[in-house]
């Protein structure tokens, strides 16, 4: 059953189109990622879901509610972590947690949440004195404090160190295990790959692809990467003629090719036929990174 439905969403600022016909739906209990380059329309899309922006056209439903017309009801089921949204500079962490907990009918206990996010030692620190990562963790806590059914996280782990990032990912997985639906905006491929059940890749205001992380990788032209150092030079013309070849690069005598499984077989045949040995031969799956670049390649 879907809890977020976005159908043909459009939004322009002045003359510039930010979102140009985006559609997707998020199932209950799913972690759904929105991935895309800067300025692709990711934040505008989720702001329409949060009811912070009024769509020019299209339909948005959150738990069956219209985020603009039924804004008050939507705020009770949806928690949001926003980009570029601060707190009063002299408000302490504890005061912020207590204040935002008081806004909700059935808030979570803020103590374990603060503990989980590593904020316990900072409870009496004022917001202005927190580091970027501490502020970010506090924002995550505020998004979760109302015990929402749906949580929207925009740039979840921006500004966090690798350790805090991993802890936050675990927290989000736990939150989902509790039945919460997560809509995650990110440009960290590792984060999307680790957390998301499905990902919508948004580019220039449109959905360029919507699939599981593995599905997106399989879809990309260079899904398999083969690299080796040949014992003798290979003819460029032979390499360029390989079936399914998506890209080829040479660096310091090492050749890196991406393509399909056919490409890999053809490379092995070529090596055997040319009596060339491949030193340090590696065949790997492309990463989500590669798939992403492939999908969002701008023609310009």
């Amino acid at each position: 059953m879907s809890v977020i439905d976005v159908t043909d969403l459009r939004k322009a600022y002045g003359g510039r189109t930010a979102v140009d016909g985006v559609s997707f739906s998020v199932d209950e209990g799913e972690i759904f990622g929105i991935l895309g380059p800067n300025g692709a329309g990711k934040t505008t899309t989720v702001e329409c879901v949060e009811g912070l922006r009024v769509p020019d056209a299209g339909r948005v439903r959150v738990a069956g509610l219209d985020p603009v017309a039924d804004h008050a009801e939507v705020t009770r089921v949806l928690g949001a972590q926003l980009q570029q949204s601060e707190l009063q500079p002299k408000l302490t962490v504890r005061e912020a947690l207590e204040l935002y907990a008081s806004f909700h009918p059935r808030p979570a206990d803020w103590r374990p949440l603060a503990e989980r996010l590593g904020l316990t030692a900072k409870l009496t620190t004022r917001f202005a004195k927190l580091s970027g990562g501490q502020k970010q963790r506090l924002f995550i806590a505020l998004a979760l404090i109302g015990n929402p059914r749906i949580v929207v996280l925009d740039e979840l782990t921006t500004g966090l160190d690798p350790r805090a990032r991993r802890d936050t990912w675990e927290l989000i997985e736990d939150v989902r295990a509790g039945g919460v639906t997560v809509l995650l905006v990110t440009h960290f491929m590792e984060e999307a790959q680790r957390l998301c059940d499905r990902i919508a890749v948004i580019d220039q205001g449109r959905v360029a692809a919507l699939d599981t992380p593995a599905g997106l990788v399989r879809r990309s032209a260079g899904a398999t990467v083969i690299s080796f150092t040949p014992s003798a030079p290979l003819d460029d013309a032979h390499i360029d003629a390989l079936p399914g070849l998506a890209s080829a690069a040479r660096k310091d005598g090492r050749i890196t090719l991406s393509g399909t499984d056919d490409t890999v077989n053809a490379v092995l045949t070529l090596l055997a036929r040319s009596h060339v040995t491949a030193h340090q031969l590696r065949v790997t799956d492309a990463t989500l990174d590669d798939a992403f670049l492939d999908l969002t390649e701008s023609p310009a």
Partner: protein
Amino acid sequence: MSTGPVNTAVLRTEFRLFRREPAGIFWIMLFPTLLLAVLGSIPSFREADPALGGLRPVDAYVPVTLLLGLIIGGLQGMPPTLTGYRETGILRRMSTTPVRPSALLAAQMTVLGAASLVSALLTLAVGRLAFGVALPRQPLGHLLALLLALAASLALGALLSALSRTAKIATAAGSAALFPAMFTAGVWLPVEAMPELMADIVGWTPFGAAARALDAASAGHWPGAAHLAVTAGWAVLLTAGAVRWFRWE
């Protein structure tokens, strides 16, 4: 949980935050009384002046310093805070919760209004105890004039923050409005002592009219309906402007 315009948790928080602003406390709550104390300690300010209808300058300055506290609260306290709340996305974050961001606006007005009224009480007390200035002889009319002036000041502050894009601009706008407001309230020359034409013109401004109303109430008369109406009219007009132009983000 409350979804009304006034949320007690937000109000408590804004009150707590106000207490952490020593500059705000000084300028709104202490500076006007301090000014009265400095003026009152000048010997000539304690001698009756025929230009003031036989009042001593220190008597005439009590209503002026009362207004000064309200003006500083509205014009210096409100615009940078409120515009800053919008600029840094505090209002925006609040609009994703069941509490409306208008709760912050209401809390700011309540806190600054209360601080301005405490400032007024302090001024009256110091005037009475240190310089023997009589308490307002028409207390109800005095209170009414004071509340209308407070409403006008807060509304002007809200309008300035509505029209300012950044907290920096809001601070500058507040300071720019402060001097004419102080002048019309009679900080440099009490309205009673102004030349007739100037006093008539100043009588059409929100704080000039409020000064005349306070003078009347101090002397024991019910303030003139025209003066109360001018201040009230400004309060309504400025509030309408603030509502019309205020943006939550």
